[in-house]
């Protein structure tokens, strides 16, 4: 292993191009993963923030919040189910917001207004009073501050921002959180086609006492009028979430295979070049496995170096991309998993050279004169 490390130190040029290629592949992996994380974070935050166990939609909504409609009778049925600890209504409407001082502005902020009863993480237990909202912190990049009045929709319905909450974006937009009354009034004024009655909400958020059968019990109690999902299930059912995850993971998988092939190719070539050297080393007592460990060590070092540069580039990219442009997030988890995938690919790639290293015959290698 010492020899392998010394070679890396004394002949870095030999490994430079392979390191550059692996750096690009590392950056690709991290960019693809970061893109997926950014997309998912910006579309699922409002659900991830729910401090509840279940989300209940009307059964014909096909798990779509905007198409779901639950009236007071269905809600009463849900509240009566054994194991249900608390039930809250949830409603949403997506609208453009203008700064209060400029109702004629064409520079709009994309928002989604939620009305809630059961507080998600970071929000007050009692929803803000009529006409006031707590905004997602992402909206600060759009010039929204505490005390800002936003004029929502074509009706310019005013809502005043009283504070901020982190990581609750939904459908790629910054969220505003208010009472169900605020949501109903804003919807009625701006989207009469989506207006709902006073006892109607789009979905119910349910806290349970922990029993596993509660979702089925709720759907049975409402005679099939509802479709109850765990919060994780509701996130997965959001439009595009599972498709995006599957597509990106497939692309990431093939990119890891490319990394494996590149490492295999590079170290196969290096091994061919070193056949005579390995012969001499074997002749003076080095075992095949020892030599192979050296190859693996070099692959790991090159991969770690490439990963470090790739991760640095990914973090810089994350900082450089302006808000609202590419939805990219370089998270520690994603960078770590990308490095692990690359290391696995590197070690697996080296295995292609294993047979050649073990097969080197010290006698014939010395005989050829190296």
């Amino acid at each position: 292993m010492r020899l392998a490390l010394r070679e890396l130190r004394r002949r870095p040029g030999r490994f430079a191009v392979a390191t550059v290629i692996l750096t690009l592949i590392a950056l690709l992996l991290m960019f693809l993963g970061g893109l997926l994380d950014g997309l998912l974070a910006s579309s699922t935050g409002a659900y991830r923030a729910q401090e509840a166990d279940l989300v209940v939609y009307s059964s014909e909504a096909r798990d779509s919040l905007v198409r779901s409609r639950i009236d007071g009778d269905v809600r009463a049925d849900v509240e009566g189910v054994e194991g249900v600890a608390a039930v809250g209504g949830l409603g949403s409407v997506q609208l453009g917001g203008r700064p209060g001082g400029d109702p004629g502005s064409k520079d709009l902020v994309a928002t989604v207004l939620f009305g809630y009863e059961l507080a998600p993480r970071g929000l007050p237990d009692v929803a803000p009073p009529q006409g006031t909202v707590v905004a997602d912190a992402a909206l600060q990049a759009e010039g929204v501050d505490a005390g800002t009045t936003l004029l929502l929709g074509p009706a310019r319905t005013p809502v005043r921002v009283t504070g901020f909450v982190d990581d609750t974006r939904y459908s790629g937009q910054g969220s505003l959180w208010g009472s169900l009354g605020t949501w109903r009034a804003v919807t009625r004024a701006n989207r009469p086609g989506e207006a709902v009655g006073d006892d109607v909400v789009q979905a119910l958020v349910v806290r349970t006492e922990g029993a596993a059968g509660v979702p089925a019990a709720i759907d049975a109690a409402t005679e099939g009028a509802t479709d109850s999902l765990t919060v994780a299930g509701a996130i997965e059912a959001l439009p595009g979430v599972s498709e995006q995850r599957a597509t990106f993971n497939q692309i990431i998988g093939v990119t890891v295979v490319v990394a494996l092939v590149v490492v295999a190719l590079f170290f196969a070539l290096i091994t061919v070049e070193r056949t005579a050297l390995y012969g001499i080393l074997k002749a003076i007592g080095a075992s095949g496995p020892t030599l192979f460990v050296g190859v693996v060590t070099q692959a790991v070092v090159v991969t770690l170096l490439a990963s470090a540069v790739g991760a640095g580039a990914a973090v810089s990219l994350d900082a450089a991309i302006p808000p609202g442009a590419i939805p990219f997030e370089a998270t520690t988890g994603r960078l770590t998993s990308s490095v692990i995938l690359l290391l696995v690919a590197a070690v697996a790639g080296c295995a292609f050279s294993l047979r050649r290293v073990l097969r080197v015959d010290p006698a014939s290698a010395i005989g050829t004169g190296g």
Partner: protein
Amino acid sequence: MFLAVREMRRAVVRFGLLVLAIALLVFLILAQQALQEGLLTAFVGGIRNQSAPVLVYSVDGQRALQGSIIPPPLEEAVRRTDGVGEAARLGQSTFTVREPDGSLSDAAIVGADVAGLATPTALSSGARPEVAGEAVGSDADFDLRDEVTVPAAGPSAEPVTLTVVGLAADVQLNVTPTLFTDLATYEAAVRASNPDATEVLPNAIAVRPAPGVEVDELTERLSAASPEADALTRSEAADESPGVAQVRQSFQVIFLLYGLVVPLVTGLFFLIVTLQKSGALTLLRAMGARGSVLARSLLFQVVVIVGLGLVVGVALYASLTRVDLGFLTLRFDPTAVLVWSVLLMALGLGSALVAVRRVLRIDPVEATTGGGGG
């Protein structure tokens, strides 16, 4: 050439790995190109391939058809604008629909109140709707005579049934099966799904310019007609839909990175191979082989390896485009294949120039002095 072919035959694994790496990269690039095109078509094909040259949104809609709402004063301002030939109220929303077997699925329904305006520009089969309840459907999702019903959301609502009488290609919206019908049917669908709806306003006004009026000129006039109006040409409406630009930017970064990896891998491979056999190359030079012959031999290998990689990669891509992904249509794009093949071959040959330079610099005298060994 004989030596070049012989060398490749004798080192099948090494050259095979390079072919595999290039093939996978080519496949990834082409698959993602198809994915980008498929995604964008599924997102905004219904806008790009509809017949109205101009769409007027409300500024509030932020160029999202479903997000735009046209209040009556804005509609009047649009209709009064000089140069407007025909104008149709256009409604669009996504609904849960029940199929004849009772299963539920999603469908985007687009309704317009002027026949032939804001409908698919061409039909792949069937006919245009003639009566309420008939629709043209996206041909990736529907067959002729298919029936779907928007179920009633309450006892006070009436279900609405749509019958597919015509089919059109690439007319999906929001990656959802899409139906084009008349406005009255659309409005009935909205009321079926939400009996509390107080009023069903159009999402946009579809406009055809009067004879002699240019589309760009009319969009400028329409945008100036009201501070609430955001008039866009058909292609602008498609390209500036929320998310479209981000999808393009994201894929461009991905293509750039993959495009860089291919020549680097090829260049690295041939540089190492050249270094490894520099002793043999020196000997060949000493025996009278010209440097240009050896360089041509190396470039021949590059062409063969990159060419094989391209063939395998394109074959994998062609297989992928035959797979039914359900929500998305991935098409084999000969132009993309041609462009990427030429580009990657050029980059591959370009990257091998370092190795070629090394071959050309070999001094035959080194064969007699023991140089050139690596």
